[in-house]
Each structure stands twice: as C-alpha cells, then as structure tokens.
C-alpha cells in the first residue's frame, strides 16, 4: 500500500473511530447532567454557597409551558444566583420512555414530571429522594393537603404536586337538553348508573335505515386510554383503590362483577358503539365534536376550551375547524355511581419527583433539588399552567399570582368542578411498593386485555371477573383478596 493511501485511510479510520466513540459519550440526550453531582461546580470562597446545577425533564404540561422554559431558568437563577436550572423538554409520548431509560441507566435527571400513580414504580427501584428534610415548613404549607399527599409514600415526600384534575365525562349541552336531561342538577347532585343508563339511551339517534347516527355515550378505551375507562368507573363503583384498608385486593369483590355487567349492558342497549374497544382518545373527541355522541369520556376541564375554540373556527368559517364538526357547548358532568356506592371522583395529581442516580447526592444538592421542585410547582409558574389547563391552582402562592392570559369560563362547569373536587379522597400512602407492582402487573396483563375482550363481546362479565380473581389469588393468595 502506498504511504499516502495508508495515511489517508488511517486518517479516515481515525475519524470513524472518533465519531463512533463520541456516540457513546455521557452527555447525550439520555443523560442530562446528573443527580450524582452533588458537588458540581466550585465554591467561591468560605461562606458563599456552592454552585450547583439541577436538571429537569419536563413535558408540555400546558400549551405554552415549554415556551416559557428559558424564562423559568433565568428566573430561578435570579432567585438563587449560585444555582442553575437546566430543563430538558420532552414530548408526552417520549416522557415515560425517556425517563425510564435514564433511570435504569443510573443517570436520571434530578427532577421529572410524572403522574402520582407512578411513584411506587420508581420507589421500588430506590431511585426517589425524600424531600422532607429539605423542604421548609413554609414551603410545605403552601400546598393543599390532598394533592400534597399524592406525592407521599409512607412518611417520605418524594416530590411535589403540580396540579390536581378530576376525571369527568363531558356532555353536549344541546343534545342533553333535547333528551330532557337536567344537567345542572346532575352537575351538583350526581347520578346513579340506572339514571345514567336511561339518559344515554335517550341520547341515541337512528336514521331511516335503523343505523345509529348518534350514540348516547362514547368513552375512549383504546391506546393510551385503555385503562382509564374501567379505573374511572371503578372509583364510583365502591372500588376506590386496588387495595382496601387491610391491604386486600378489591377487584375480586362483587362490586367489580356488578361494574363489568353494567359496562356490557350499556353496549348491549345500543347506547354505546359495539366497536368501543377500538375507539381511542382522538376518535371519541372527533365523534363528540361531529355530533356522533351526546356524552363522551374521559372529560378534562380543558376540553371546554377546545370545544369553544372549535366553535369560534366554525363561526369564522375557518378551514382548520374539525371536519364536519358542529358548534358544541361542553358541559362537565360527574361519572355516575354504580352498585349504590358513594361518588368518589378520580382525582389525578401530576407533579415533580426528585430522583437520584448511582451515586448518592449530597445533602446540599438535595436541598437545591427541593428548591427547584418548589419553584416549578408553585407561584406564577403553577398559576399559568393551571390557568391554561382550566384548573384551580393547588398552592396558595399560585392562587395569588397573576396569570399571563385569561380565558372565558362556563360558570356552571367551574361550580361543578369545585363540587367534584371537594369529594376527592386523599392519596393512599400505605400501599407497599411490592403490592402496587403486582397490582400493576395484573392491570396490564389481565385487566386491560380482558376488558378489551369484554367490550368486543368475546367474553362475559363473569369470565373476566373469574380471570381477574384467579390472577389476584396467584399474586396475593386467597387471604390477600376481598371476598364478599
């Protein structure tokens, strides 16, 4: 080989090698500067606080949340000149997978945004940091008690809540009134399954051929919404949690069988589509806006705004309005109660957890994480995303803060939201992580697949009940389940 060719080839090989190895570097997207770095940076002298960087992995909580990241980082640095808040944006689709990859690689961000129901998953891996010692009493007192407890497990405070949302169902005002449904009374007093079943049957409209052109009720049950349907209805069917106060698995009680029977009845009545198992969140919202259903689920406060914006587009003849949509006044309604149980709303609390990597963080770093977590979940930051989500803030500081933009609200929906919120139960902090993990496995491997089969009319409610009971006995033993 000629010397020149050798040199050139060696040079190219070197470049390839460097590119190859640089891909394995530690500062890629999956490894933001880390929790390990308790002593990151330098001290500027004896008494001055050490410099530190706190990293956060955050999804687009509200429409404009991520666009404010630069301002948030700047504001935090102004409040704490020795600290740098480094926020890594993530999409909702990527969030869980990105975080899980980082956690399992031993290099998670210091702060991540998750639903409170996910805390036990990370607690089981021992990667959560208890912020109790790092948070001042004054900071804790800022938060409403119920949402704050959602980020506790045992005595540990593993993070701070960002907002609390009640999962409801949403109705089309015009259709509800046409069906003779007193929605204002339902908003305040709730309804039973029997009343609800009767109401949704009145909402069904058929054409001359006998084909259904409008259903009474459509709930998203496919894709990411697969577990919502049953979980939301179970709350109001006497099954507020997977475990009762004696830590016995509850989905083996007769209430569960009763709920499954009701779920099947609504489809058999023709009030819900027989193809329900394939209807995802996007499809059912489209069906709601195009007048193909009177009531939809799950309902979120922000849907009122989505419907209003679409109404404005229709009025303005804007081509970006949902195709074939009609003007809809969105009415927030409580989920009906089953089996004569009390109304217990499904309260979803999302927020910020504090994480550690392979190396234990220093006390000072934990304090800094607590400062950043508190900063992100209170004050004007929380006020603005709560406002954009049509939610009431859950911290006193956020309630007192000014918001950047004000949105028109339906006062009836606001009052209904407050009435439902008042009935929210505090989180269970006594469920051990191993029980929670087993329950999650039953949910994923048995409940959701069997529910799909039940909705598709491939199995009877009793068969699904038996399958869940068998799985529960296998996981928790005969003494670990509710028998009634």
């Amino acid at each position, binding site marked *: 080989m000629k010397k020149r060719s050798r040199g050139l080839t060696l040079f190219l090989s070197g470049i390839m090698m460097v590119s190859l190895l640089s891909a394995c570097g530690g500062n890629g997207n999956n490894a933001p500067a880390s929790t390990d770095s308790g002593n990151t940076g330098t001290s500027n002298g004896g008494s001055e606080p050490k410099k530190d960087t706190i990293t956060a992995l955050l999804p687009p909580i509200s429409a404009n949340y991520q666009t404010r990241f630069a301002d948030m980082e700047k504001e935090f640095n102004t409040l704490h000149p020795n600290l740098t808040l480094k926020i890594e944006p993530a999409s909702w689709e990527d969030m869980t*997978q990105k975080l899980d990859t980082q956690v399992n*690689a*031993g290099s998670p961000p210091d702060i991540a945004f998750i639903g409170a129901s996910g805390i036990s998953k990370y607690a089981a891996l021992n990667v959560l940091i208890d912020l109790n010692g790092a948070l001042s009493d004054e900071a804790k007192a800022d938060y409403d008690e119920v949402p704050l407890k959602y980020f506790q497990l045992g005595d540990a405070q593993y993070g701070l809540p960002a907002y609390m949302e009640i999962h409801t169902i949403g109705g089309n005002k015009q259709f509800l009134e046409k069906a003779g449904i007193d929605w204002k009374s339902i908003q305040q007093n709730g309804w039973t399954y029997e009343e609800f079943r009767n109401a949704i049957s009145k909402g069904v409209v058929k054409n001359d051929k006998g084909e259904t052109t409008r259903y009474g009720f459509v709930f998203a049950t496919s894709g990411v919404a697969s577990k919502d349907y049953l979980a939301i209805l179970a709350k109001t069917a006497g099954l507020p949690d997977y475990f009762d106060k004696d830590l016995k698995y509850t989905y083996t009680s007769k209430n569960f069988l009763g709920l499954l029977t009701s779920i099947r009845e609504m489809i058999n009545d023709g009030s819900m589509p027989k193809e329900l*198992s*394939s209807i995802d969140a996007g499809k059912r919202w489209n069906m709601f806006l195009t007048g193909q259903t009177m009531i939809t689920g799950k309902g979120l406060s922000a849907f009122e705004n989505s419907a209003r914006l679409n109404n404005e587009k229709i009025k303005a003849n804007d081509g970006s309005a949902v195709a074939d949509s009609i003007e809809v006044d969105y009415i927030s309604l409580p989920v009906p109660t089953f089996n004569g149980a009390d109304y217990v709303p499904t309260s979803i609390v999302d927020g910020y957890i504090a994480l550690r990597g392979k190396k234990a963080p220093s006390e000072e770093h934990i304090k800094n994480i607590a400062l950043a977590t508190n900063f992100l979940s209170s004050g004007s930051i929380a006020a603005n995303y709560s406002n954009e989500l049509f939610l009431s803030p859950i911290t006193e500081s956020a309630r007192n803060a000014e918001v950047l933009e004000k949105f028109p609200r339906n006062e009836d929906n606001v009052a209904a939201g407050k009435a439902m919120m008042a009935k929210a139960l505090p989180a269970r902090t006594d469920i051990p992580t191993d029980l929670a993990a087993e329950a999650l496995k039953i949910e994923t491997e048995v409940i959701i697949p069997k529910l799909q089969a039940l909705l598709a009319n491939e199995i009877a409610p009793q068969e699904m009940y038996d399958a869940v009971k068998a799985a529960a006995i296998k996981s928790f033993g005969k003494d670990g389940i509710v028998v009634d």
Partner: protein
Amino acid sequence: MNQTLTKRKKLKLESDSGWGYAFIAVALIAFSLFTAYPVINAFIISLQKYGPLGSTFVGMDNFVNSFSDELFWKALKNTLVYTLLTVPFNILLSFLISILIIPFKKKTQTIFKALYYLPAVASGVALSVVWLWIFDPLKSGIANKLVSFLGIENQNWLGSSATAMFSLVLMSWLSSHGTAIIIYIAALLAIDNSYYEAAEIDGASFLQKLWFIVVPFLKPTTLFLLVTGVIGSFQVFQNAYLMTGGGPDHATTMVGLLIFNNAFTYFEFGEAAAQSLVLAAIIGFISFLQFKFIGKDVEY
C-alpha cells in the same frame, strides 16, 4: 543479499497485514461495542434481578419464570402463527411481482422497484397511523367500506380477537415487499438467457420455464429471503405495539412486545433479557433447520 531481500519482503508483508488489522479495527470495535458487549451483558442480566442501583444474582430464576408463564407461551404461539402466515406469502407475492416486472424495460423496472420500495423508506409509525385509519372500526372506515360492498357488516378489525391478528397479517401482506422484489429482480437478471433459449427450442411453456429454470436458479435467493424473513418476523414488535398494543386479550401479543413490556413497563430487565436469549435460540434453531433441509443443495 538474497537473505536481506527475503527479510524485507517478510517485513513488508507483516507491515501490510498490520495495516489491514488497523483498518478492520474500526468495524471490529463497533461490533464489540454494539453487538458482542450487549449480547454478553444480556446474558449476565438474564441471571440477575436487575436494578439501576445494583443487581442481585438469581441464577436461572428468570428462565424458569418465563417458561412457567402462560403469556410467554401464548406470545410464542402468536409469533409463530404470524410468521407462518406472513413470510411464505410475502416471498411468493414478491416473486410473482418480480416475474411481472422483469419483462419491462429497465426504466419501467426502476419505477416499479422504487414504488414497491417506498414503504421501506417511510417511517413505520407513519405507516401504522395510515393503517389505523384504514382499520377504523366505524362504518366510515376504509376497510369497512370495502367489505360493505360484499354485504359484510362493519368489523372491529383491531378490537376483536377474530380479526386482530388477520389485520396485522394483512398489513404485512400489503406492504414491505420492496427489498425482496429488488433482490429477486437482481437474481432474475443474473439468469443467462441461453437457458430460456434452449428451453424454447425444446418447446417448453412459460410455466415449465418458471418451474425448471427460474425456481432452481432462485433457490439461494429464496433461502436468503426465507431466513431473513423468519428472523425479522420473529422479532416483530412495532406493528403489534402501535396497532393493537398486543390485544385484545393478548391475541396479538408477540414475543418482542412481551419483552418490551417486561423491560420498560415492569422494569423486569432480567426476565426480558432471559426471554430475548430464548428468542435468539429459537431463531437460531429455525435458521439451522432451514439451512439443513432447504439449503443442502443450494450452491452459492
């Protein structure tokens, strides 16, 4: 003098070999880092209860748990059914399309090859979204509109156990033939024309030429496509994950999806690694059988 020349030659040769090793080092390091190391690590993890802050050795527990898990066997069965329904049909279809394309002029062939290869360039996620739209369960869905012409009522394509697996198979039948078609066309072009001319002189029909000339000549290509098709099919993950999530009632849960769920939903990396190794062993065994029984008279 003579001895000195030999030494020089030897040194030159050794020196050239050294350069050779230096150059393949790039590929070797890439292989070690991204193939060999993960495989060895997967084997180690399969013997552990993995945790990000430390793992514990559990011996063969993860393998035992996998083999005693009904869902693992169901996923294996689903994967096998999917493979049997997709791979042979896809190879046959690619072969027939290639036979139809080959009589055209080179330019027209290129257009067809490009058209058939297009789905391979598109993102799998984007394709899945299109297929989700096609399989819309309501009357307005494209697939339901098509079957309504046959007097069949609308189907819950992805939501019913009776049709979910078929829907995924149909999706495979109607896409992803590009690579096989290109390979088949290349192999068809390599067959010398003299064979066809001799057969024509002997009065052979089109089907006889196909059976006695084309099929034997394409046997190595078919074996290659069969082996790679089976490997790809056993590793199928994306379609089930995006289209059905493995449902309904695990009717479309493939091994790849089960491994993913164990790893990223339950954080059971040990069990996921054990199942990956079992899957690799099954794929290896099937490939061995294919080479032994189909590839014994194949000449390359």
